[in-house]
Every structure is written in structure tokens, then in C-alpha cells.
């Protein structure tokens, strides 16, 4: 199966990429051609593919998608901002917007297209290479599947963001990357945001990535984010998917971590009708700390699917993964958490927990932890629970006068807070807390 109608568009995209691509180096064109070949070869996965069993793409693949044009300069809705003191960078329909984006000393934030010229060698060495190291994943049990939408993004992206922090630099302000998706009413529009983040040795940065639609529109976002965390670097990365409830989001997020680095990542999913994110972290250096936590809140008819893959490829890595998933109405949430502890990765300490809270009898969770351990001296634990709001705490709160829906919201928040409170950036934490309440329909003033 292929994105049927999109096939026609693809030729247009490629022609456009080539036509205006006088400035695109030959290696980029090769990379794009390869992306397209691979995508065509694998197509859009059907439910027969194990990793897509619970997430049917039939409707998605049969839509008549148009490639998103560069967006307007004026938006229907105000663009999000968590922290008044932050540096905000805006990508409209996947393209870095120079006019709307701020800059900060110590950190390079430029259009990916420009960076291919200014930082050509560096980007050639990194772009589309944050995934698992293919020389170390030859064995069939640990070989990653092709994420065909990542390939589609590589084939299709026209511009994006290049974010780099030089060695040893500590970036003080928060960086907020906002992806805004614009579409004409009733026009299924697809965008391919691409961002490449390189945090060099010993550098430090905290940044957010937020995906929103401009008002409610029928858009699909197929982004790829790649993050390279250098030796001893310290990175906190909060990804918030808060698109409107009629949109689609199918994303790939890959990170490579070097020795003695810390990478704390949070995947917050509130939005889209159909949402799928594949997050992969490749731990390629020793003495690392890794967090890949998630907060998912789905209601209405939403279908939100998160797949994570963590590769402990070397010894002495510590990883923590907590997923908290709140599911209401007839929404469905899918979680698949793979942890590969490679043969060399002795003394790995990996903890994974995933918990679901079902608020309605029609809510569904399909969760599958998957620990594959090939080393013998490791500490790995995983646990999964599915529960409902308990009757007694609810009664206790109501007895004190708290109305039922507010009491439920407080308990739901308490459930999700275990992850949200790990986010060290207070304005972000507060905004997400507020957003969670508003999503649950609670006005707690």
C-alpha cells in the first residue's frame, strides 16, 4: 500500500526540490532519492505489520493529500509560548520562518537549507543518521524495521531547522521550537518538518518542540527530529504534540547519545485524531543517563500510538522510562516500549513503567513492553498497570465538597504528575498542567 494520491504529489515535490535545489548539494539529492526509493519499496504499513497492528492507516493512505505550501504570515490562533524569557523559533508547515524566529547567542538556529551550505560537512555526516547504528544491529533479533514515514520525510522535506550548540556552551534561555501547521479549509494538507539538533561535547541546552495546527484543520504532520548529544552534554527535550482533533501526526524522533551525557526527554501527547510517534534512543557511550518519559491524554475518538526503542549498545547506561496514559471516551492508546540491551552492555540499569488510567468503559489501551536482553550482568525491570479511578479517594474528596469532575481531574493530574513533575522547566510544567486540565474539561481557577 502506498499513499495513493500522494504519489502524484511526490513527483511534484521532487521536481520542486530539484528545481529550486540549485543550492542543494548533490549528497542531499542522493539522500532524498534513497528516501523515496525506500519509502516506495516499503509503502504504507498495513495492520499485518506487527508494529502497526493496532494503528490502521487505511483512511490516512486514501486521502487526497496536498503538499503544504509555505504558510501565511498571519495566523488564526496565537502561537504558543511557555516562557516569556525564552527564545522562540517558528516553523510554518515545516519551513523555518526567519521573520517569526528569534535567535540567541551561543546557539546556532538557522534554516536547514542554509545550513547545508554553511555547515555542509557536518550535516552530511549526521542527517538521517541518528537511528540505531546499522553495523551493530545486523542480527535479526535487534534489527530495526524501516520507519517508512521517516523515509518519506527525507524524500519530501524542503526546509527545516538546524540547531547547534558549540562545545562547552551552556545555553541559558529555554528554546521553544513551534511547529505550526496551516491548511486551507477542507484541504487535506501534508507537511514534513525536519529538525536536526547537534549538541556538542560538554554543552547544555533545554528545549521544547511543540506541534500545533493553526485553528482546526485537516492537516497531516510527518516530522523527523534528530538529536545528537555529545560527550558529557546535558540536554532536556520536551516534545508536545497538541494538534487539533481532526489532524494526523506520524512522527519519528531519534537521538544518539555519547559517553557521560544526560538526555532527558518527555513525550507529551494531547492532540490529533490519529497520532503515532516512534522514538528511538541509541546509547553509544558509557556512563549515560537517559529519560524517555511520556504523558498521553486521549479522549473523544482519538487514537494515539507511541512506540519507543531504546538501545543500550555499551556498558554502564542508566535509563528510565515512565509512560502515564489517560484515556477517556472511546479513545484508544497504544504503547510499545522496546529496550534492547546489547551483548556488550553490561551493568545496564534500565527501568520501564507504563500505566494507563481508563476513564470510560469504551476507552482502550494496548500496551506491550518488550525487553530484549543479550548481556548477563544487568538490572532491568518493567511493569505495566491498567486501572480506573478509585472509588474511595473520589468519595473522600467529594465528601469534603470537591465536585466529582474536579475531584476526578485532581486524581488524573496526580496520576500524570509523576511524569510532568520531572520536567525541570517550571513554566513548561505549569503550562502542560493547565493544558491537561483544559483537555479534561476542567476549569480549576
Amino acid at each position, binding site marked *: 500500500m502506498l499513499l495513493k494520491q500522494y504519489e502524484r504529489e511526490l513527483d511534484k515535490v521532487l521536481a520542486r526540490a530539484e528545481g529550486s535545489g540549485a543550492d542543494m548539494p548533490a549528497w542531499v539529492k542522493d539522500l532524498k532519492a534513497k528516501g523515496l526509493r525506500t519509502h516506495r519499496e516499503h509503502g504504507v504499513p498495513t495492520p499485518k505489520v506487527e508494529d502497526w497492528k493496532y494503528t490502521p492507516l487505511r483512511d490516512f493512505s486514501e486521502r487526497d493529500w496536498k503538499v503544504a505550501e509555505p504558510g501565511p504570515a498571519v495566523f488564526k490562533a496565537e502561537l504558543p509560548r511557555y516562557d516569556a524569557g525564552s527564545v522562540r523559533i517558528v516553523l510554518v508547515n515545516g519551513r523555518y520562518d526567519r521573520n517569526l524566529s528569534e535567535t540567541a547567542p551561543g546557539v546556532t538556529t538557522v534554516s536547514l537549507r542554509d545550513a547545508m551550505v554553511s555547515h555542509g560537512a557536518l550535516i552530511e555526516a549526521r542527517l538521517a543518521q541518528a537511528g540505531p547504528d546499522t553495523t551493530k544491529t545486523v542480527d535479526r533479533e535487534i534489527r530495526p524495521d524501516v520507519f517508512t514515514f521517516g523515509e518519506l520525510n527525507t524524500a519530501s522535506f524542503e526546509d527545516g531547522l538546524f540547531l547547534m550548540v558549540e562545545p562547552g556552551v551552556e545555553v541559558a534561555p529555554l528554546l521553544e521550537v513551534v511547529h505550526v501547521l496551516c491548511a486551507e479549509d477542507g484541504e487535506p494538507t501534508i507537511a514534513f518538518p525536519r529538525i536536526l539538533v547537534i549538541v556538542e561535547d560538554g554543552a547544555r541546552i533545554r528545549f521544547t518542540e511543540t506541534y500545533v495546527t493553526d485553528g482546526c484543520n485537516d492537516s497531516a504532520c510527518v516530522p523527523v527530529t534528530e538529536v545528537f548529544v555529545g560527550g558529557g552534554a546535558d540536554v532536556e527535550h520536551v516534545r508536545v504534540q497538541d494538534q487539533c482533533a481532526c489532524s494526523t501526526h506520524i512522527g519519528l524522533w531519534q537521538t544518539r547519545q555519547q559517553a557521560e551525557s544526560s538526555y532527558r526527554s518527555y513525550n507529551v501527547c494531547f492532540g490529533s485524531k490519529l497520532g503515532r510517534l516512534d522514538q528511538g534512543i541509541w546509547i553509544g557511550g558509557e556512563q549515560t543517563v537517559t529519560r524517555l518519559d511520556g504523558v498521553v491524554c486521549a479522549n473523544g475518538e482519538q487514537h494515539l500510538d507511541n512506540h519507543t526503542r531504546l538501545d543500550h549498545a555499551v556498558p554502564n547506561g542508566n535509563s528510565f522510562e515512565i509512560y502515564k496514559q489517560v484515556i477517556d471516551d472511546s479513545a484508544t492508546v497504544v504503547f510499545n516500549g522496546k529496550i534492547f540491551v546489547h551483548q556488550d552492555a553490561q551493568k545496564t540499569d534500565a527501568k520501564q513503567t507504563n500505566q494507563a488510567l481508563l476513564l470510560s468503559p469504551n476507552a482502550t489501551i494496548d500496551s506491550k513492553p518488550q525487553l530484549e536482553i543479550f548481556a548477563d550482568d544487568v538490572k532491568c525491570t518493567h511493569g505495566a498497570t491498567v486501572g480506573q479511578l478509585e*472509588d*474511595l*479517594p473520589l*468519595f*473522600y*474528596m*467529594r*465528601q*469534603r*465538597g*470537591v*465536585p*466529582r469532575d*474536579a*475531584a476526578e481531574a*485532581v*486524581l488524573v*493530574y*496526580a*496520576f500524570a*504528575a*509523576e511524569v510532568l513533575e520531572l520536567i525541570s522547566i517550571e513554566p513548561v510544567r505549569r503550562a502542560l498542567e493547565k493544558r491537561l486540565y483544559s483537555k479534561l474539561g476542567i476549569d*480549576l*481557577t
Partner: protein
Amino acid sequence: MLLIKNLHANVAEEGRKILKGVDLTVGKGEVHAIMGPNGSGKSTLANVIAGRETYEVVEGDVLLNNESLLELEAEERAHQGVFLAFQYPVEIPGVSNAYFLRTALNANRKAQGLAEMDAAQFMTHIREKVKLLGLPQEMLTRSVNEGFSGGEKKRNEIFQMAVLEPALCVLDETDSGLDIDALQTVAHGVNSLRSPDRAFVVVTHYQRLLNFIVPDFVHVMMDGRIVQTGGRELALELEDKGYGWIEQQVAAQV
């Protein structure tokens, strides 16, 4: 103030009969003690008054100031002034005690048409009560009842009661698990709330509490009914002789 008429209640799911015709009248300003053997239905009565949905009222009525409570949700009863100090206070991980209580206070204030309090106003508002119950400051920031000792939980219940200032205070074995000093602190907290407009129903197994909180009436509950009522001397008699003699009296009447 509180009028309970021929109240019959079952466990909602299984239909087991627990309350089998409770009659009780509590006037404004009064303190009523309810004693009785384990499993006789004291906590069930307290929970039914508070609106716990686990129990289903099949007959009779519960009136507060001449209005039936039975159709009201638990939170609406709270807004009418019903407060239940739980026999087993509930732990709520992840929700701070202060946040919880402020949310509760504001919900009550909102229901009464009063302005809500922000965090600072709230802290000022509770300062006296914190002192009254000798509550360590850190108990406010900890999660509701989580990891509290048995005695701390009970003290926290009375603290919440003092802050919410309800009209009808139902205390379910608040004295159990308290050491001697804490018992006095809690009794002192309760007594400071006594007023001509407020009534107390105190469930207890021990006469000792009633030395500190002196009741106007003492009732004995057995097998889902109030079978004996007297003054405070009844509690002394029970302490002395146990429940056997009442059981025999009840048996003789049948």
C-alpha cells in the same frame, strides 16, 4: 438538625442488609455518641449520611434541617454542611494536603456564593487551625494522608473539619489509634468547634474520649439499629459491663 427515620440500607452490589431501621434525632448544639459492637453498622450509618454510593437506602429518610439528603450527591451534602471524619482516612498520592484542602474550601465557598481564596489568603486563613491541632507545617505540603501515621491521619481529619467549619460533624472512631496527648489535642479541637449551631455525632468504642468531649446523649447500636439511648452515664455503664446485658434485653423484647 439531623433527623433519621427508620433508615434501612443495603450494600448496593450484593444487597446485604446492614442498617435495619435506624431512628435518631440530633438537635442543634448537641453532641451524640454512638457506641456498639464491631460490625453493628456504625460506620455504615456515617457513610450513608455522607452519601457513599456503596450503600443503597431502601427505606426511611435522612433529613438535615428538614430537607432530605438522600437525593443529594456527596459533594452537595458537604456544601449543606455535612462532614465525615473517616475511620480510615484515605491516602491520595500526588495531591498535596494544602492544595486539596484549599480546593475543598473553595468548592464550599463557591457553593455558598463566597469569593474563592488564593494560596496566600488560604495560608492566612488556616494559620490558627494549624496551631490549634499542632500540625507540623510539613504535613501541609505532603500528599494527603500519604505515609501519615495513624494518629496523624486522625489529626488531619479534625484539622480539615476545623478549616471547613461544617454544621454537622460526624466523627467515626477519630479517637482510635491516638496517643493520650493527641487525644487531648483532637478533643480540644472538637470542643473549640462546639457551638449552638453545630451538632456532633461521635462514633467511638471508648468512654475515655467522652471524658473530653462530653456527650448529651449516648446511643447503642446493634445489628443495624439503635437499641438503647441514655445520658453520658450509659457510656460508663457500657465500659463497666460490656454489651451483653443490652443484647439480652433486646432479645427479651422480641
